[in-house]
């Protein structure tokens, strides 16, 4: 990530005014960053406050810190534990990510390394399904699930999340696999290497990080999904986002608890997202921006 820094600029050619201006802009960036992130920071701080301190006006910044919010969220106060929803989210996201990879990898191979004819048209078909709003298929899926007894079952979510993420995964992986120089692959084949070896020795090292990032993005999207989960699951298969929404209604409003719950549910995504910042843009812009 070298920005306009690519323009060679040695320190001594910078006038004092330019340096002052640059320092001011740096400070402004800091102020904007902290200010913009403030709601999230506030959420984290509140999650460590006692309920009485969380619900004061004006806010009490210096109140004692406690883990009570987290303890109650995890069932410390005799309430429902969040483990089943968290496990459901984990399972639905994990299995759908695996399924996405299994389907998207061969497809991306056919779209980049050994290209099918009219490959761009196929790419755009994949993309166009992503433009189909979720609500347009919700009712038939609901009726189907109801009639086949698949309601409140995470495997149905796995299928739906797979279809939701497959187009993005195909696009991303296509662009990552296209980065593998065909000449190297051919050289390896001339040397007698067979497909599995080529994939392992040549494709994986080049495209591996991209594939990992793709998996991460699919996982994040599945983890975040609310509408399908809300309509198609209930007591058994409810996911973490659904739990978050019902948590507020069933427990009444306890701000510190709510903040603790939000932090816990967001934590996997935050960690994954920070780790894959650059690839995230590429994935979200469907591979159009590198």
């Amino acid at each position, binding site marked *: 990530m070298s920005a306009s820094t690519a323009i060679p600029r040695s320190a001594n050619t910078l006038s004092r005014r330019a340096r002052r201006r640059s320092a001011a802009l740096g400070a402004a960036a800091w102020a904007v960053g902290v200010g913009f992130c403030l709601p999230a920071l506030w959420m984290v701080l509140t999650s460590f406050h006692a309920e009485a301190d969380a619900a004061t006006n004006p806010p009490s910044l210096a109140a004692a810190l406690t883990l009570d919010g987290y303890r109650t969220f995890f069932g410390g106060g005799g309430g429902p534990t969040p483990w089943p929803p968290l496990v459901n989210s984990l399972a639905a996201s994990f299995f759908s990510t695996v399924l996405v990879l299994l*389907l998207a990898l*061969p497809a991306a191979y056919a779209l980049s390394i050994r290209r099918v004819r009219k490959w761009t048209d196929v790419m755009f078909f994949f993309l166009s399904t992503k433009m189909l709003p979720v609500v347009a298929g919700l009712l038939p899926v609901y009726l189907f699930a109801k009639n086949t007894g698949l309601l409140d079952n995470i495997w149905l979510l796995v299928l739906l999340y*797979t279809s939701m993420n497959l187009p993005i995964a195909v696009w991303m992986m296509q662009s990552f696999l296209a980065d593998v120089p065909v000449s190297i692959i051919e050289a390896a084949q001339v040397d007698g290497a067979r497909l599995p070896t080529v994939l392992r020795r040549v494709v994986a090292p080049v495209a591996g990080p991209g594939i990992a990032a793709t998996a991460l993005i699919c996982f994040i999207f599945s983890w975040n999904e609310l509408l399908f989960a809300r309509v198609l699951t209930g007591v058994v298969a409810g996911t973490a986002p659904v739990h978050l929404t019902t948590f507020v209604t069933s427990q009444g409003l306890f701000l510190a608890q709510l903040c603790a719950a939000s932090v816990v549910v967001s934590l996997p995504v935050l960690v994954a997202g920070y780790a894959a910042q650059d690839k995230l843009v590429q994935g979200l812009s469907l591979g159009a921006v590198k």
Partner: protein
Amino acid sequence: MTVTATRETPAPPAPARKPGGSGRRRAWATRAPLLPALVFLIAVTQLPFVATLVISLFDWNSLKPEKRHFTGLSNYASVFTDEALRESVVTTVVLTASVVLVSVILGLAFALLLDRTFFGRGFVRTLLITPFLLVPVSAALLWKHALYNPEYGLFNGALTWFGDLFGIESVAQPEWTSQMPLIAIEAALVWQWTPFMMLILLAGLQSRPAEIMEAARLDGAGPWQTFRYLTLPHLRRYLELGILLGSVYIVQNFDAVFTITSGGLGTANLPYTVYETFYRAHEYGLASAAGVVVVVGTIIIATFALRVVSSLFREEASRA
């Protein structure tokens, strides 16, 4: 749904194929890896949409299943004449347009700030993308309860605090979500989507050719001129991409509307209305018709989106 914006995309030259007797078998061998993904996607996304189309032609309330009958396009007439539904069409447009516009402008400003070296740049960047990484429901809950709450939310708390600071007795304590419901949702969504725009525009800024920027500087172009005549034209593609992808996602927003106002006070957008119509009101036919309207709207946006993406993509393909 198949958007055919690809018509004008000339297929880039296919890699040279060796002519051979087993050409047909070979073509299938290349095609085979593609099929599982294609078949899966058609089955899981296109079939339900066809079913939605069919259901939208029926008068069907699931509480009175015996009265189900074919009614033609009358559900569509209801979508456009029913005041609540028509309002939700307007709400969707307003919500999408305003959120996309504001987040693009903010995102551009943030990207410009980050496009220079300064102490702790990586950390500030991390701070700025955090809102985008929060689970959408928890972000919506955060805004509703921790920020907007009239009694102990951060906003009113800050107002009180400032009041105390300047010795003002009773500071106004607005009820954000009931006094300005749509703006409340928009603010939360702008907060979540600005980082997305920033990331795309930052990628655009960093792909500016350094030599040209340097040449402009040597020719005496000031920062504003450089921005106006070099940076902005270069960013056009990225701006379009951000706007269009943002629109496609925000048109479909459900989480924020559901969480912050539950669609009350004129904030119900189409996705929320479809959800309500079928999940609570059990009007299957009507909900399906509304769903189809959402799709048509999205297709219009998507056609433009695909055109933009395809132009970027063509550059990519020609570079390869």
